[in-house]
């Protein structure tokens, strides 16, 4: 008995923790390697799609030739050349440019070069666009827009996530109540994406009853004090966040409610009830905790979905984020920016997936320790 007491009073806790930490580190490393490979393949696929075995190169050749002849013709220094001489000069310059861009090498070779540069986040230079500070590097153009996107989507997602989980928990307690039925009935409204609700919200709150701005991130000119600036950004965020919230919340509540109902009929929940535990403890430790990993998974999957949706929602609300950037790049046919955005999206998604894995392992000992 004394022996048992010594064992029970602490030592194994420490041992258990170090064991868990060791396993967790190993798991994280493994996932990192796997994810790195995944990104590698994903980005390479993106490059392949973007170049479709070199078709973009043809476009670029045409463009280079056009640009060169333009500059040559416009330069008064070459005006008195004969047309043959001029053509020769143009050809030389084109060749030089082709060599500089290494367009003379086979695509497959360059594709790995592109891959290397994309992995190093060297996304090249934009053809038309530039960042607000004037940089032409795609990387800077994108990085400048990223915070706006993160702010908007982060806020909306967290709102949807926490509100839905907590409403769902309370609904699963009030199974069959009028509130419960209403939520079920409202769930199909989530078939429409956020931008769709955005249009209605703009219609009502910016035009029919003009109380909120119809788009943008901050009024022009922006307010001087940072407090007023923040308040103005929040005012501009209201409609897009509401749009995303509306389009997601009911389906989220519905699925969480069902999820919790299913899990609250697990044997161990029944056991906890039989054990006389109070219901808030049961909810916290017996319903939420064992199901945290699927909850987090679906939250992150929702994030992934919304990343994609960002493009159009930002466009509808004229929000100066990655989505609008991509939209503008389409308008300018600025290929490097488009490809760069896709790569950055891929990185963001990969990061999300990685977070998901690690959270999974932290939350669920079954994954962390594993049945070997």
């Amino acid at each position, binding site marked *: 008995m004394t022996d048992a007491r010594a064992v029970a009073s602490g030592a194994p806790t420490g041992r258990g923790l170090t064991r868990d930490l060791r396993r967790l580190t190993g798991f994280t490393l493994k996932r990192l390697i796997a994810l790195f490979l995944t990104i590698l393949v994903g980005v390479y696929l993106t490059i392949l799609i973007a170049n479709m075995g070199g078709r973009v190169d043809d476009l670029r050749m045409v463009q280079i030739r056009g640009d060169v002849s333009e500059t040559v013709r416009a330069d008064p220094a070459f005006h008195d050349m004969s047309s043959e001489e001029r053509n020769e000069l143009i050809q030389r310059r084109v060749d030089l440019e082709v060599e500089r861009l290494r367009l003379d090498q086979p695509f497959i070779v360059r594709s790995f070069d592109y891959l290397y540069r994309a992995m190093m986040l060297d996304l090249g230079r934009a053809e038309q666009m530039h960042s607000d500070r004037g940089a032409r590097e795609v990387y800077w153009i994108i990085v400048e827009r990223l915070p706006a996107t993160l702010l908007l989507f982060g806020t909306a997602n967290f709102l949807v996530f926490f509100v839905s989980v907590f409403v769902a928990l309370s609904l699963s307690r009030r199974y069959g109540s009028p509130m419960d039925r209403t939520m079920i009935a409202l769930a199909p409204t989530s078939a429409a994406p956020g931008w769709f609700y955005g249009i209605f919200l703009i219609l009502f709150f910016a035009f029919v009853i003009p109380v909120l701005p119809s788009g943008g991130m901050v009024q022009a000119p922006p307010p001087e004090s940072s407090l007023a600036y923040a308040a103005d950004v929040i005012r501009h965020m209201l409609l897009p966040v509401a749009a995303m919230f509306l389009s997601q919340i009911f389906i989220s509540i519905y699925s969480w409610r069902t999820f919790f109902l299913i899990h609250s009929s697990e044997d161990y929940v*029944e056991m906890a009830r039989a054990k006389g535990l109070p219901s808030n403890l049961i909810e916290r430790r017996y319903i939420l905790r064992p199901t945290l990993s699927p909850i987090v998974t679906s939250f992150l999957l929702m994030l992934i979905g919304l990343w994609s949706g960002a493009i159009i929602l930002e466009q509808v609300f004229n929000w100066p984020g990655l989505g609008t950037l991509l939209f503008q790049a389409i308008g300018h046919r600025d290929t490097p920016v488009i490809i760069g955005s896709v790569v950055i999206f891929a990185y963001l998604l990969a990061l999300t997936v990685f977070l998901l894995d690690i959270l999974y392992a932290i939350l669920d000992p079954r994954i962390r320790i594993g049945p070997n």
Partner: protein
Amino acid sequence: MASTPLLSVEDLKLHYRSSRGVVKAVDGLSFDIQRNEALVVLGESGCGKSSLAKTLLRILPRNVHHCSGRVMLDGTDIMALDEERFRRDVRWLRIAMVMQASMNALNPVVRVGEQVAEPLRVLRKWDRQRAMRKAAEVFELVGISTDFLQRYPFELSGGMRQRVVLAMALITDPELVILDEPTSALDVLTQASIMNVLKRIKRERGTSFMLITHDVATSSEIADRVALMYAGQLVEISTAGEFFRHPAHPYSKLLMASVPRLRQEQRPAHIPGQPPNLLAPPDGCRFADRCPSRFQRCAEDPKMFRLGYRRQVRCWLFAEGGKRP
């Protein structure tokens, strides 16, 4: 009798709704359990025996339709207590339970030690140290190494998990432990060793047991008395000696004859027919359809007839016995 029984159940009913109608899972049960007594509730699957356990601990399914009756624990009607009182005073402190399918009875993401100590921490407000010490004690009692306190359920074998669940039921020293098919998924050797643990606990601590099972052979390992259920009703309550040696109800007789025995030449026989549908149980005796000694009166519903000391049988064949003083 002079002493009040530990648990006394009168006319307990539990009906629940299903998509096809109301299922009368428990339909008017009355029995009692004395202190330090083990009552075995025997019955085939679907006869309502698991619902009985859940009704006693008031962990009812969401689709309950009707639940009534009196459950007296040491003289107080615990069915009349409100939910919060019941939770704080009765659950686990006085009646604990070992669930069927212990595989899933443990929270997969909480270390087993904490789960076992949890009732003390929550209901008795013990501090962690003290609760864990007690947990280590019960682990010893049920025969698990205290190293396992820090393990997660999925790291344990089925037998170990079953012992953990048993430890959890014993940690509050309850007066009554309800065991719902505690060993049905386990191997013969593990089964026997868990039955040994139960016997020891009963002997050393004077705990009362209610063992719910369909396995006649295992039930005899611990039974002081046997209650046989059929289609939501009790058909016979006897002392173990009488039930296993001289079953009274025709169903009891057939059931005993159907048990394969290792040390007996006689070949087991099966019971023809099937149990009735609990959605619409037949009028009259529910076993009549399958009963070899059926006669006219079986069309009426028999009541429990008294047959000797603490022995009752729900069969018209014993109607005379019931009239005897």
